[in-house]
């Protein structure tokens, strides 16, 4: 068990900063996800941890060792790629044995460990197969077994599930998590899929344009996003800009002619804010109920167990999203219906307005084309 610490880690490709000043700590045995949109620098960060990419600045520590300048073959990390990268010229067993042979582990011990690893990932019978004869999910398991066979100090996974179909993804996801818990291995997991990150991680770091916007446990990331970007990228909801008005202990955000009640407001004083209303913070009232907000259902989406609806509310620049069990809402919301809604402060996040969101910034300061 080794903790990973990144200190002001940065990487520039020519004029473009792929990663800028990322500092974070992955605790011993922790499953830590880097979450962010395409191009935000997740892969670059992970590759620097693996030693495949050279940092432009900053340091990487495994435990107390500064490994910033250690070449990849001396870092003892387990690495799993999105493309599996299973050696096509070797059998499954030879793939798993590769790192052990490099380490000159005795033959009998290699055979024992390979068999054990294949057993763990559920490929016990397939050792003799060539990679060409395996499915995507099986290949991913081989890659995982190969990475774990060397008993690495840390496990690094870069979007390992992206090439799998939706159902398999959920399955392998659970399996990776189970293995990680059993082996208590410190894990850095890169993904752009928020559901994956929220469901698997002990903690999540949300990246945006090369920087780390927020680090926290999944619940915190979802309920108390630190920035407008995190609020928009993680989870759904209606993101609005407004002005915070304090009224004794209660606070509201004025958006156009409309007021959103907000709960315990930690950060902002009165002033310009963004506010994110999550679907679970929007409640459907009876048509006859007094009060609430009136709107017209513009669009209804049925997704099996649940149902989503976007409601146009006069005075609001964006549609308000409502979600609920499809049993509950069936027949109550149809396109074109007039509905009444209430906003629950518990389902509303708010934060101070920021400068316009920066795209990945060129080193010279200008925006990238």
């Amino acid at each position: 068990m080794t903790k990973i610490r990144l200190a002001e880690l940065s990487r520039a490709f020519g004029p473009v900063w792929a990663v800028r000043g990322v500092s974070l700590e992955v605790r011993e045995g922790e499953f830590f996800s880097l979450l962010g949109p395409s191009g935000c620098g997740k892969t670059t960060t992970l590759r620097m941890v693996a030693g495949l990419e050279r940092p432009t600045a900053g340091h990487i520590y495994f435990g107390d060792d500064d490994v910033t300048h250690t070449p990849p073959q001396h870092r003892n990390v387990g690495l799993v790629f999105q493309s599996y990268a299973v050696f096509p010229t070797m059998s499954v067993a030879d793939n798993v044995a590769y790192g052990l042979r490099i380490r000159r582990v005795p033959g009998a011990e290699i055979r024992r460990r390979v068999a054990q690893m294949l057993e763990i990932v559920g490929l016990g019978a397939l050792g003799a197969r060539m990679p060409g004869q395996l499915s995507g999910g099986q290949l991913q398991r081989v890659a995982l077994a190969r990475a774990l066979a060397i008993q690495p100090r840390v496990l690094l996974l870069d979007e390992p599930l992206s090439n799998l179909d939706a159902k398999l993804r959920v399955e392998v996801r659970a399996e990776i998590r189970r293995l990680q818990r059993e082996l208590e291995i410190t894990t850095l997991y890169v993904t752009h899929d928020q559901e994956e990150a929220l469901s698997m991680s002990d903690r999540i770091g949300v990246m945006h344009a090369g920087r780390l916007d927020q680090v926290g446990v999944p619940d915190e990331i979802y309920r108390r996003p630190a920035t407008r970007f995190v609020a928009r990228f993680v989870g759904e909801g209606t993101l609005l800009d407004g002005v915070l008005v304090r009224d004794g202990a209660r606070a509201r955000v004025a958006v156009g002619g409309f007021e959103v009640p907000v709960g315990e407001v930690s950060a902002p004083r009165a002033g310009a804010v963004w506010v994110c209303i999550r679907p679970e913070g929007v409640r459907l009232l009876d048509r006859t109920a007094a009060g609430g907000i009136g709107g017209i259902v513009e669009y209804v989406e049925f997704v099996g167990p649940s149902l989503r609806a976007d409601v146009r509310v006069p005075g609001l620049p964006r549609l308000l999203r409502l979600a609920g069990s499809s049993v509950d809402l069936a027949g109550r919301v149809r396109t074109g219906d007039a509905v009444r809604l209430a906003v629950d402060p518990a389902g509303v996040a708010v934060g101070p307005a920021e400068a316009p969101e920066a795209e990945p910034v060129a080193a010279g300061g200008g925006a990238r084309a």
Partner: protein
Amino acid sequence: MRAEPVAIERTRAWGRPAGPTLDPLRVLEVLTGAFLIAFLIVPIGAIVVDSAALIARGGLWEFPDFVGYLVRLTRNSLVVASIVTVICVAVSLPLAVLVGRVLPAQRLLPVALTLPLLAPPFVYAFATIILFGRVGVITQLLAPLGIRMPEIYGLPGIVVTHVLHLIPLSYLTIAAGLRTVPKAIEECAISLGSTPMQVLVRIVLPYVSSYVYMASLLVFLASFGDVGAPLLVGGQYLVLPTEAFTRFTSFIADRRVPVLLSSWIVAISVVILVVVRALMRRTAIVHTFGVETYTYAQPSWRVVGAVFCWGIAAVLFVPYLVIFVSSLATVWGPDLLPKGYTLNHYQALWRSVEPLRNSLLVSGLATPIAVMLAVVIGRMMRDGGRLGAALDYVTLLPFVVSGVVVGIGLVRVYSPLDTLSPVVPLITGPALLVVAMVSRRVSYPMRVLAAAYTRIDRSLEESSLSLGASPATTFWRITLPQLAPAIVAALIITFIQIIKELGATLIVYRPGWVTLPVQIYAYALEGNLGRAGAVSMVLLAIVAAGTAAAGLLGRRTRGEVAS
């Protein structure tokens, strides 16, 4: 607003593990670099430097009328190469379209059309003599009709020989381009109401224009640099490479003249290369390979196409037939057909097998060296950034300039070593021949391997590193096994190219080291076409066997990838 990262401290270079470790890959890279410098950059550089020094000293005025002579030669060379290029591209463009788009079902056609690439150009040259010479077969056939063939020795002879020999090269290049045009593009254009002809001219042609430039470049440089055909059928029509050759090998002539001519050839070739590459870059379209292609099904096109394509294929095949017949003929001419038939020419070969042995030995030694260099250079090109790009140009240099120039450069730099000791001549003799072949042809395996490297998934190598393997181990256990099919293909292709090489060989070879091409050239020069034909057949047999092997192998490896 997020803060700028404070005072970004630049990271030190990669730390190496303690202790003196000798990375075998570094050693290979250094050796390869040394080879390229010693046998490629220095020889060609020496020619250029010599010439520059001579000109700077005002030495040009020592040769009366040198400038006029140079202008005449340059004009002749450019005229030949331009005419050949125009004809070749003009013929192969419709050829490639018809074969690829109208007659895709005729599988034999592409094979028939690429046959001439088997033979070296000088073999085609003496077929030209037999066909069009003063008592040539076609000359005689036309005479009763009152048609008098123009004198073949000179510009017409060179052009005919080069066109026959180089049409396949431009055809193959353009056909490769056409295969990258996705079916959907042509279907869209047709559905928008264009006629097939409009689609070809407005959509397809611009799409493949970079391939057309490429074809022009290859044909132009091949024709511009060839020495065999002009020597055999050029007559009094002098071109740059032949003059460089004859003046370099004759004892009375001043050696400074061929050096000047050589550097002039280098200059022109490089300018053309740079210009055409720039053109290609401007017009290149990022291609998706392995796309399905469109077929034009107009019946009239099919008929015209079949006649045109098979007609060309037949014309391209005639020289082979001629060479074959001449290898069996006692005397051919002045009658239409040979006077009699004999196996004497082949029996004579049997009595002196040295050229065959020499050719196999030199090619057998040079080929693995060239491929090994290519493996190392290909890796450096992939990983090496600017150095890689420079390597690309360096190895292209001996490919684009005439073989004669490569030979002159090597002899100019290394033959002075002859006088040093009795051992050295061995090095400057046969060994220099091997070196010359490697330098001249290393760009062939390089193209093959550069392509193979791009097909390897980098994350495989990265996985190996992260599993603890050193870069050298990773290369040996992960990279090389994946390169294996490409390496075998490169070996065959390079062997074929080397065993056909004449220009550089003519300059570098020493007595006792006559190769097959040199022997064919010598027989043809003394008019012994029967012997020349027999040797050519042997050479062709070797090359054909290699090509067939490469074809089979290509099919097998493609099959593996597909399954």
